[in-house]
């Protein structure tokens, strides 16, 4: 690999990292604004015009607050928990194709950090790793509510991973590849996977809500039952890491959903646009389209949060095991039948 290529990759990683952090930061602001709008309120509007500096103020507050480590907590693991949570949240975006390759002069720049052969499974693995941050933190706190939150998070993640995987299998049958780049390329123009896999998408999005611990499946941090759930004992920036990891997870899972089911950077009429604006601007427009889709999904996450009340724990398990898994298996069988008899 040439030095220039390495530099380009490094730059891309830095840019993606910064973008996911900024998006997560402003998701906290957007969450409060959206919540306010849904409740006929104004939302934060004091820090800067329209409260636009609110995330900075929040971050500053988090850094300034007193750091408390409980006496009986197990010291190192108490710190490892939030670090692991935010780390696993950040590495998920490595395999997402952010756009078509750019042609700058004779150079071709891939807008993807790495195109590994098993991209879908990689994301899956990162998601399943994410629960360790919560479990370790919850256990290390030495608090019964934290432990209950951690256990809920673990069982919820494992239960919903199964139906998520089954939903992806049906998608892989249609696309025939595990590489996210190829999946995105196959959805060229308007051939989005959601048209071929509506049921699979429905299952996937429900599981995505459960995996990111977002309402209505935010039982690990259910205030009414568990005080704060797994982060009851956390304060200062360690708490901030947990909250921040949730928003980064939301961003990454929105990106994954947009890539897997909603065509990624593809949009109808993209060939015509690329032919007219050239091979640099064209793919960049695709990237903008991808981000528009991601923001729509993030808005959808918030919309659901402020509409649907939290599930009860047994309802959650019933939905996961008795409804989603059979549905996902039926989806696989149905996809197989249709592909056999009608071709794709």
């Amino acid at each position, binding site marked *: 690999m040439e030095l220039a290529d390495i530099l380009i990759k490094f730059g891309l990683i830095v840019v993606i990292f910064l973008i996911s952090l900024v998006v997560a930061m402003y998701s906290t602001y957007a969450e409060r604004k959206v919540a306010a709008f849904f409740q006929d309120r104004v939302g934060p509007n004091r820090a800067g015009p329209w409260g636009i500096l609110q995330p900075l103020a929040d971050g500053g507050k988090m850094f300034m607050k007193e750091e408390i480590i409980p006496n009986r907590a197990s010291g190192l693991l108490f710190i490892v928990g939030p670090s692991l949570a935010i780390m696993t949240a950040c590495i998920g975006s490595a395999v997402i194709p952010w756009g078509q390759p750019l042609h700058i002069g004779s150079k071709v720049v891939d807008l993807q950090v790495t195109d590994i*052969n098993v991209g879908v499974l990689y994301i899956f*693995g990162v998601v399943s790793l994410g629960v*360790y941050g919560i479990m370790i933190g919850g256990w290390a706190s030495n608090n019964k509510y934290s432990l209950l939150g951690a256990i809920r998070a673990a069982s919820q993640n494992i239960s919903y991973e199964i139906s998520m995987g089954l939903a992806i299998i049906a998608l892989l049958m249609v696309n025939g590849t595990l590489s996210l780049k190829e999946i995105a390329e196959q959805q060229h123009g308007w051939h989005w996977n959601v048209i071929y896999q509506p049921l699979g998408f429905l299952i996937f999005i429900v599981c995505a809500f459960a995996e990111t611990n977002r309402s209505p499946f935010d039982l690990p941090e259910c205030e009414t039952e568990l005080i704060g759930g797994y982060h009851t004992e956390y304060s200062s920036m360690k708490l901030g890491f947990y909250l921040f990891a949730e928003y980064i997870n939301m961003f990454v899972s929105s990106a994954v959903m947009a890539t897997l089911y909603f065509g990624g950077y593809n949009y109808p009429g993209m060939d015509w646009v690329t032919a007219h604006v050239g091979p640099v601007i064209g793919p960049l427009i695709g990237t903008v389209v991808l981000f528009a889709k991601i923001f729509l999904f993030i808005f959808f996450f918030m919309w659901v949060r402020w509409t649907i009340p939290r599930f009860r724990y047994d309802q959650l398990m019933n939905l996961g095991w008795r409804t989603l898994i059979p549905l996902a298996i039926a989806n696989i069988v149905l996809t197989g039948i249709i592909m056999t008899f009608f071709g794709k």
Partner: protein
Amino acid sequence: MSTFYVIAFLSIVFSLLVIFAKNPVHSVLYLILTFFTFTIHYILLNAQFLAVVNFIVYMGAIMVLFLFVMMLLNLNKDTEPGKHNLAKLAGVIAGGCLLVVIAGSLKALGKSEPVVLQNPDLGLVKNLGKVLFGEFLLPFEVSSVLLLSAMVGAVLLAKKEPRTV
């Protein structure tokens, strides 16, 4: 090659820590780290699929359940069952047997030869799938039957017996 030695060293260290850690939860966490080094080994062998499956299934699911059970157990000093002398004796005999078996098998095998892959891309999903569902179809299906029987057994154990009054 140097990467291999670093990772191999790490896996041995972590697996020793699994045994020597006092706290069972720490032990499980070290086991997770050991599995992580295994994942890196697979990547070094260009077996991407195996690496990711090891990552998802072992690290992401099975070890979560291990941790889950460990957290729920009440592992205080006083709840630990007392070790009888008989149990100690049995342990020594079993350990000795294991040692003999390992030593014997090592001797029987002789010096192991480095595995040379004919096809370096064998670990990729496509090739692996072709091999699994072509050449090794029967063992593959038999192992799935084994898993099924294990599942049935688990369900049977978990089901409450009807009360006979």
